[in-house]
């Protein structure tokens, strides 16, 4: 029988510290309430109205949701391409960043320089990144020239439905320098004693990676996966550039560019259908929430904490 814990009576100094802490937390809570929770509630509220700017809103119940799920030309495609791009870019980004982090974790000359080189794409503005890659992917661009050199056919990578999402995922992979840096930090924390013990026991490099490094890295991988999923599902810039901003100058926007954030922006901000755009954003929020929850639930079966599950 365990002894019952004695009740802790905080001292004066401790109480004052707690009061200060609460006081200092007020701005953060205000931010959370006014910049996150209230807008979220507002978005849901507005999604229940038919509202086309500059007109006035009229209550419509769940009609915006009904329209999106049953009649809208873009909605299902938008969900499909967002998920496809999200999964592809996250999976490829995780593998790529792990490989590069492992390579950079070796004692190679110029390691710091390589680390900077691989990190740099992450800090380049998204518009510049996409425009540069669009030149590489162009019909007369370097990628097509290489393809032709090896006997292939020129492809409009950013215009053909079959290639758009893989091509954009490739850009996401290229910009995943942040994942590399985080993974390198994670690799530095894998206990040397485990690796040395395994080496003495005759484990080869692959076995050491698979049985020790990878399990020890799972909390980092989990974090990377979560952040990448949320970030990549919000992809926006390529669609905006492809549509030339929408409105009068709108160009061809193939299905593969109809990402949910873009559809939401165009519907609400360009076309002024505020109620419907709010419904799209709320569904997007739910969707991201569902995938985050799935990730958390499934992580219990593969996440390894060296110091035990923190619960």
């Amino acid at each position: 029988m365990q002894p019952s814990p004695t009740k802790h009576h905080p001292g004066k100094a401790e109480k004052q510290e707690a009061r200060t802490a609460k006081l200092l937390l007020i701005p953060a809570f205000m931010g959370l309430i006014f910049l996150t929770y209230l807008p979220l509630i507002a978005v849901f509220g507005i999604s229940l109205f038919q509202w086309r700017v500059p007109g006035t809103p009229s209550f419509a119940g769940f009609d915006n949701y009904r329209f999106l799920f049953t009649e809208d030309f873009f909605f299902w495609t938008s969900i499909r391409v967002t998920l496809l791009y999200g999964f592809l870019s996250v999976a490829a980004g995780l593998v790529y960043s792990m490989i590069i982090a492992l390579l950079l974790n070796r004692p190679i000359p110029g390691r710091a320089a390589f680390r900077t080189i691989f990190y740099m794409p992450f800090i380049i503005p998204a518009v510049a990144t996409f425009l540069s890659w669009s030149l590489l992917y162009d019909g007369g661009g370097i990628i097509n020239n290489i393809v032709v050199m090896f006997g292939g056919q020129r492809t409009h990578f950013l215009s053909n439905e079959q290639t758009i999402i893989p091509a954009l995922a490739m850009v996401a992979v290229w910009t995943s320098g942040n994942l590399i840096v985080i993974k390198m930090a994670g690799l530095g924390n894998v206990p040397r004693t485990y690796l040395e013990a395994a080496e003495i026991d005759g484990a080869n490099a692959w076995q050491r990676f698979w049985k020790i490094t990878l399990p020890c890295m799972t909390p980092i991988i989990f974090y990377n996966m979560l952040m990448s999923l949320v970030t990549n599902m919000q992809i926006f810039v390529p669609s905006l550039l492809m549509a030339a901003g929408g409105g009068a100058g709108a160009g061809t926007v193939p299905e593969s560019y109809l990402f949910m954030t873009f559809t939401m922006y165009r519907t609400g901000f360009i076309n002024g259908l505020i109620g419907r755009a709010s419904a799209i954003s709320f569904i997007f929020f739910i969707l991201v929430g569902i995938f985050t929850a799935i990730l958390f639930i499934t992580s219990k079966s593969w996440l390894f904490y060296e110091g035990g599950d923190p619960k």
Partner: protein
Amino acid sequence: MKKNAVHGIVKTFMLLVMILGLAACGTAAQPEPPAQPVDATVTQAQEQEPPAGGERVNITYAMWGDASEVEQVRQVIQQFESEQDWISVEVINIDRGDFEATLNTMAIAGNLPDTAIMAEPMVLNWAERGMLLPAGDMFAGFPEEPLEKLGFRWDGETVGYSVANELLLNFFNRDMFEAADVDVPPANVADAWSWDEFIDTARTMTLDTNGNNAHSPNFDPSNIVQYGVMFDPAIWMLEVWALANGGGWYDPADPFNVIIDQPAAVESLQMIADLHLVHNVSPQFGTNIAATIETYLLENAAMYINGQWSVGVWLGPAQFSDGLNYGVGVLPSMQRNITMATGGVNVAFSTSQHQEAAREWLAWYAQVENSWAMIESGIWMPIFPIWYHDEAYMRRWAENPNFPPFEEYRSAVINYALTNAVPTSWYWVNNTELFNDVLSTALAPVWSGHSTAEEAINGAIGALRAANRGN
């Protein structure tokens, strides 16, 4: 009362969300005009006539443009302010990419400017909701009314005139045609190429890396270095081909009757797609997103179909900076010789507290001498008839080093504008932006050859009809 309270709460929440959204999208902060009720009507702001006591009224004008354009407008405003003593105008400059979003946000916040230039697809939606002041009698005190075709009409009332009379034209690189010893595109509409002649010339002008043109049996379509023709990627411009082929996108007798699924319109879309897919004379439609017309005309294309504004925005300056030797011709015909006219619209909002001042400013600004910098550069074409009928006026405007040779321009642009230009559908059809959004996605597989125009249009016709009705 309850309804008003609900609206108030929703507006407050929405304002918060929109501000956050705009901040996230990187919109520049705008000066804040005094708050106005969103649903104000013309009758709510009638007490703003020219003041008897000589008091000045301040109005705002929202526009897009780079620093030099804004400076030009400011100079015009100074001139305006020196010519009368009761109106001052303040410019609100909004980035073009954020213009629609910002204006929508200002409307929600009740902070609309008094006047603004507006992109064409927005106009009738705003007119339908009573947000625009009538413009039909705006030019009563001036020598001429604008060209009738440039008036946007809703419910029988003119709600705004285009600031410019822009046309779709066939620009070409004269040096490329001379090098190939091929006749340049005709400037006279009576000599306009048939579609077959157009394709034939485009084939001659399309060259692969070995210098073979698209007529040659040795032509290599996977290694083209010069295309015969290219098109601006904007979807709305494709309507001209449906009209040229004897059809249209909307029934002229009923703007709510979509006829893009009829054979003439469908065939015209397929004919554009086939320029790439069958004839190899044009890149896939819509793929040129990262460069401008002068880049292509200088290096990659013999002809480029685009709007007249290209003279001022790209081609005129490229003559001096890059030695571009360009010319202009009329569009090729299918069943009819036709082009489309369009132009952004200056509107006065019904929420303005100074409606007469707003209308007076716009009418004054529309006079050619007050927007001369835009016209002289070639970005705008005049909107008043005398500039198309009187040779002295024409020469004053178009005998200009930025422009192609005067006789060519007069025939291919000025005369063409009078005889063969019809207004783009957004002058009389609402919700064209929703329609064009659906169309732009529906047609993507047509351009890449993964479906025919008939399949694409049949698959999207329900959504196109819904979009036409505002859904």
